């Protein structure tokens, strides 16, 4: 793994203005992403997990400049891409791509598969035959019969559609792909195929992946490092192994304990997260997690913990992080 990050997210905050009602002029602010800093290195997969509404998708969208961050910088190859002109932005588009969650709405129903995959290529090249060659090439990579090139999306299954989406994403040989819940909408068996396909592609192209998911199992399978988000903040960041085997943040512990998978040896000690995620419109003071944390102390209600390096390459934002290597079991 190279020491120079391909993507550096620096203190990114994203606010949305919300009108409470059409009748009163009152505006409210929703802070979807709150002071997030992350690095992604070439060839690695950074997993981002969290419950829905934690801001992970918004983070992904800011990286792709589908929405501009309110504060902070996003550096790609060391260049801030949040301040680019339309033209400069287009150049960056060659390097960053996205794979969406919903394979149904992410493909234009009026376009043939061939045209869908060719679209990014056409934006950067006018060599028709080269484009056609590349389309066939990526269709092979994603294991779609080339004969399907002239079909429309509605003629495909969900897994096949997701392959089309992946083919589109990798067609221009990006260096970073944001996978936003890329397999969540698929059946479990299909999920595995797609994940393997992504792994394979990464192995061959050294593309960096920012893998956003609420599914810890999937994240673990694919990621080298994992960031846990809660209420717009990163509350824990560590290597896949460290995070899953030795979570420091009570929230992470809770998430892990909720995994219903059979191969985890911690059955019987499952902890459920009680209560709802607090509204990001009116976040609680202090630690964002304190309302649902069973280890909550007075200080948690007042002071917001910062992300601390608790071990090498392991950060967590908690006043009372888990100390034992055994993590969850001890937390009980």
């Amino acid at each position, binding site marked *: 793994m190279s020491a120079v990050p391909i993507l550096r997210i620096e203190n990114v905050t994203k606010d949305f203005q919300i009108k409470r009602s059409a009748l009163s002029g009152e505006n409210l602010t929703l802070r979807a992403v709150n002071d997030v800093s992350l690095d992604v290195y070439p060839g690695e997969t950074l997993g981002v997990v969290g419950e829905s509404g934690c801001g992970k998708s918004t983070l992904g969208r800011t990286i792709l400049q589908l929405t501009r961050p309110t504060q902070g910088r996003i550096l790609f190859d060391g260049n801030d891409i949040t301040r680019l002109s339309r033209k400069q932005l287009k150049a960056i588009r060659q390097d960053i791509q996205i794979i969406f969650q919903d394979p149904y709405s992410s493909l234009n129903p009026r376009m043939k598969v061939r045209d869908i995959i060719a679209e990014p290529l056409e934006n950067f090249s006018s060599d028709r035959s080269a484009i056609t060659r590349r389309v066939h090439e990526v269709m092979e990579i994603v294991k779609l019969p080339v004969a399907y090139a002239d079909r429309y999306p509605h003629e495909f299954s969900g897994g096949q559609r997701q392959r089309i989406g992946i083919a*589109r994403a990798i067609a221009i040989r990006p260096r970073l792909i944001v996978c936003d819940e890329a397999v969540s909408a698929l059946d479990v068996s299909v999920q595995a195929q797609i994940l393997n396909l992504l792994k394979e592609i990464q192995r061959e192209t050294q593309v960096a992946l920012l893998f956003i998911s609420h599914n810890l199992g999937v994240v673990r399978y694919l990621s080298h490092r994992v960031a846990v988000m809660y209420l717009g903040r990163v509350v824990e960041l560590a290597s896949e192994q460290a995070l899953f085997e030795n979570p420091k943040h009570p929230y992470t512990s809770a998430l892990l304990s909720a995994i219903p998978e059979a191969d985890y040896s911690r059955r019987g000690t499952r902890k459920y997260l009680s209560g709802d995620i607090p509204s990001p419109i009116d976040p609680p003071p202090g630690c964002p997690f304190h309302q649902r944390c069973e280890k909550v102390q007075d200080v948690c209600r007042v002071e917001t913990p910062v992300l601390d390096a608790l071990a090498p390459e392991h950060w967590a934002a908690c006043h009372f992080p888990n100390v034992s290597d055994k993590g969850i079991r001890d937390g009980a």
Partner: protein
Amino acid sequence: MAAPSTSQTARPGSDFFLRFRRSRNAMIGSVIVAFVVLMALFGPLLTPHDPVKVNVLASWRAPDSTHWMGTDALGRDVFSRIVLGGRVSLIVSMSVLAVTLTIGTVLGMCAAYFGGWVDALVMRTVDIIFAFPELIFAILVAAVLGPGTLTVIIALSMVWWPGIARLTRSLVLGLRHEMFIEAAIVSGTPAHKIMRRHFLPNIVAPLIVRASIGVGFIIMAEATLSFLGIGIQEPEPTWGAMIRDGLSQLRTDPHLALFASLALGITMIGFNLLGDGLRDVLDPKVRN
């Protein structure tokens, strides 16, 4: 709200025709419209008389075997004039449709896609035109331009494009956050191409419905402008002007206003039924 695109467009074409054939309105409407269009296209080639040929010695003839619908004040064959008038009506309505669909969709898409001042500019213009009752604005424009075919086309286009723009804008806003649009943005697809390849094909169906309903409005509006004397002028026959001229002769020569009214009425029924039918067929929400 889900965009109208996915579920309905995912349907193969054969289903459309099946549903179309099952819609009584659409079938009756399309038969009438097809008849009117064929008449307008080929009728003038087949009419027994020259529609602008004056023969005052043969004026005011009642319908007979030579002049199936009689003759008018100048002895011109009413049947031939009605056929030609239909062509004029269709030329006007098709031109207005072409102009308004182009302007309306382009501006509507730009407003929705770019937002900000583009949106504000387009939508405020739309608001201002909408602030005028529609025909009154057309009358104002027609009065400015002076009577004529081009005037009617321009006047009705100016009245009608804002509706298309507003519809397009709302449709595009519905699609704006569809993932395939974002995928296109991420792919570096330029705005004009996104509009052409992604927005347009996905908003075409509701626009077609709107257009088919609009044809009726336009034909009637043209007739009304002609009726009020600020529409298309002699020697070009239009149904509205023929009805106006015939009204004062209703007691003595009813055929003048009668046949023109019938032609206008039947055409209107055709387009209205077709529009209704298409809406039922293309709009998945209304399915019986």
